């Protein structure tokens, strides 16, 4: 089963929930925690004992390079590029690899085969082990914009590793990185907090999971931290609240160090309950 932990708003506690769920799940079954927040990967920080299984794998995108001797400066490549990555002015063709998405369209339209593709690294994936838990981290290179390529590579790696339960730690937002991260999941857990900001962003995230037809439940984190009625909002939207983590200052203090609440019976019980609910298939009927 693939469970994606997501949210519209950042900082609601996605990584915290994903890490604790993964830890709970790993006690009884082969579990893989997949960090798809490739712009800000923080899940492995919760497991300082984790050891890499192998050298990180480089994620690359095929980028066109110009073979000037073959180029007739016809400009077809520049006209075909939808990302404005190719300029053909005054008989000179220049390619901006920073903007190129590596779709390969220019290469296909070039009548003289003057464009050749070469892999350019955009990030890496790392497989680690922390006790009984497997971890897979996607990490985009700083300055790059192709986060979705790294996300897809990490998803492929995770499938290759194979696990009874895969917990994905997704990026915030509702645009391409978030969409790619929830795609293929059996269930989406949206982590929300009781603030107006969070409810506003939860609305967009629910719309996304509904459009993609993925069963969805909400975990209310920092419960009691604010007065905004997240639970009431979920009820009106007919999305179940499947768990709650109460706000305690001590929890915020240990959470700041990315230490797991391993010995907190309330948290462990809540995580086990959520997993039982999802693995038994209850609450996984498609949201309408």
């Amino acid at each position, binding site marked *: 089963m693939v469970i994606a932990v997501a949210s*519209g*708003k*950042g*900082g*609601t506690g996605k*990584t915290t929930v994903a890490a604790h769920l993964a830890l709970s799940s790993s006690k009884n079954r082969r579990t893989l925690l997949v960090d798809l*927040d490739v*712009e*800000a990967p*923080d899940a492995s*920080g919760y497991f300082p004992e984790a050891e890499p299984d192998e050298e990180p794998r480089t994620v690359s995108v*095929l980028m066109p390079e110009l073979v000037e001797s073959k180029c007739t400066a016809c400009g077809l490549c520049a006209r*075909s590029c*939808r990302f404005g990555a190719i300029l053909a002015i005054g008989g000179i063709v220049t390619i901006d690899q920073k903007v190129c*998405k*590596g*779709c*390969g*369209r220019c290469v*296909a*339209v070039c009548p003289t085969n003057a464009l050749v593709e070469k892999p350019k690294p955009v990030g890496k994936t790392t497989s680690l082990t922390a006790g009984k838990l497997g971890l897979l981290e996607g990490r*985009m290179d*700083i*300055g790059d*914009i192709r*986060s*979705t390529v790294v996300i*897809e590579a990490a998803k492929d790696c995770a499938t290759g590793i194979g696990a009874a339960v895969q917990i994905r730690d997704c*990026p*915030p*937002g*509702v*645009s*391409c*990185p*978030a*969409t*790619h991260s929830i*795609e293929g999941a059996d269930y989406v857990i949206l982590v929300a907090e009781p*603030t*107006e*900001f969070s409810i*506003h*962003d939860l609305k*967009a*995230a629910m*719309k*996304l999971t509904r*459009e993609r037809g993925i069963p969805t439940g909400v975990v209310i984190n920092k419960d009691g*931290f*604010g*007065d*905004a009625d997240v639970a009431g909002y979920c009820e009106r939207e007919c999305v179940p609240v499947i768990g709650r983590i109460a*706000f305690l*200052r001590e929890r*915020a*203090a240990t959470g*700041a*160090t*990315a230490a797991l609440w391993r010995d907190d019976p309330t948290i462990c019980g809540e995580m086990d309950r959520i997993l039982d609910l999802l693995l038994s298939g209850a609450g996984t009927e498609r949201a309408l």
Partner: protein
Amino acid sequence: MTTVSIASGKGGAGKTSISAALASTLGTSCIFADCDVDAANGAIALGAMAGVAEPYFAGLGFSIDSPACTGCGACHEACRFGAIEPAPGGDAFRIVPELCERCGACADRCPVKAIVRYEKQAGELFVSNTRHGMTLVHADLEPGEDTSGKLVALVRKRAEKLAGPDSVIVVDAPPGIGCPVIASITGSDLVVIVVEASASGIRDAARLAELAMTMKRRSIAIINKTGLNAGMDDRARSMLAGAGIPLAGEIPFDPKLRSAEESNRTWADIDCRSTGRIRAALDAVAGAVRKLKEKP
């Protein structure tokens, strides 16, 4: 015109609250550009009143006209983004709009021209008045749309159009360090890096600081949520010192701060134990902005 962008790497570090408080400190003549178009909370933070909306079109999209599709799979092979899948039924293909990058490589390869173009509204752009007096430019991206960077650029362009020569534009950036963040801090005169005093917050802010440096942007930092763990506070300070980023101030964690958004106040005019520290940090950023206005 001076542009100051507030970013953090990690989400939930306090970007929007600090942006709103900074705007309130700079005065009603500044313009607030909410560039977190995925999760736009500037309107809540500043109390936006009904604004002028205009549709946002992301550019041409592609879809497969299923009666014409012969199911040859050439498009599926051409697509580098995994956005083309067999349609239910199995004798045709379909494009998953949420995964499509709109490159058009599939349309070139289709032997029967079954791939059609369409233009669809992908969101809305707003210019609103706010209860706090400053003008707010904000946008709502349709969930699942893939052009957040383009919409960010549009929000900034609109803010620049409204700005006078002496105006300050406050850009509230999205989390992360990817495309929409780069669009948010490109050309900014000053990047305010909000560092959450937590292990994750510090790591993500360090990645952002490196991005700002490679983009040759001047940076200043505010450490938020201090006082929870002294070790983390120190680690945040030494990360910034190591990166050579000046510290405008620190904001102690205070549960009272989150109620600001519900009481239509910003952090600059809420009354709690952290108030003095917040004002000092904001004044330091405002001072840096003033200096830039005098000597860009």
